[in-house]
């Protein structure tokens, strides 16, 4: 969470990253940027929650056990959001890992903010 990167005059703070991708927070815009599957996409609060839900709703086990001939590609489309992801099963798993890590870090940030600033100050 300490690393900062400047990207076209927007201040990013890295929230969480894995080998496959990373999530950055922009304090000035109140949003998050997700660097994943070859693109950097902007998500506001509502859309980030919707993305998490969409990813969590994918039944990975069912897809693994599915012996049909359909491609194991998931299209993740979020209502009222400019972005859509077309992910293979491996990418879905990676995305899930990235998002769950992100939410853990956001929760941790919440606890830190509470303990360091809100309660003490």
């Amino acid at each position, binding site marked *: 969470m300490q690393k900062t990167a400047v990207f076209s005059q927007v201040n990013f703070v890295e929230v969480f990253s894995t080998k496959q991708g990373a999530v950055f927070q922009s304090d000035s815009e*109140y949003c998050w940027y997700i660097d994943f599957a070859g693109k950097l996409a902007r998500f506001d609060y*509502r859309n980030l*929650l919707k993305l998490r839900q969409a990813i969590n709703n994918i039944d990975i086990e069912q897809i693994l056990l599915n012996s049909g001939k359909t491609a194991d590609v998931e299209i993740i489309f979020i209502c009222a959001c400019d972005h859509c992801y077309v992910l293979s099963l491996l990418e879905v798993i990676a995305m899930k890992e990235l998002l769950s890590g992100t939410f853990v870090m*956001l929760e941790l940030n*919440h606890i830190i903010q509470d303990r360091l600033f809100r309660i003490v100050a």
Partner: protein
Amino acid sequence: MKDIMRIKCLLSSDVETLLNQQIKKEALSSSIYLSMASWCNRNGYDFSSDYFFKQAEEERHHQLKFYKYVLDMGGNAISPEVTDIKLEYNSFREVFEEALDQEISVTQSIKNIAARCHKEQDYVTLEFLNWFFKEQREEEYKARRALELFEVIGEEGTGRWQIDKHVGQIKYDSEA
């Protein structure tokens, strides 16, 4: 780094999920009462039918209270889908037995939310829930009292007619 999650919403995702489950439960309750009102009306228990119509409205009111609270706190209130409502009952008494069961399950589920709030120190939601605890005292009392009428009046002869007449008069006005 700003705590955007907290800035946008007071509720934790766990509490929000529980509140949405409760919204569904209240909606289900309301529909069940409506179905009971229909059954009572069809079988000639008009006072009980009115009683259940009123209960259905109250449950709907509870549902909206939860619904608005979730929205006011920045959460996402989900309009629930209600299915599988029982249409037929075996007896007049069974209707009231199920009404009490329903109220007990609502009380237990609100207690469960409160337990979660305690764990998270979410005193804001806890305070909001207090109104419901008081309400549940009344709801359970009324449902229990209705069943008691079956014991004290008895179902023989004109018993059911008497019970029906008295159901409409059940009141809870404890100051405690």
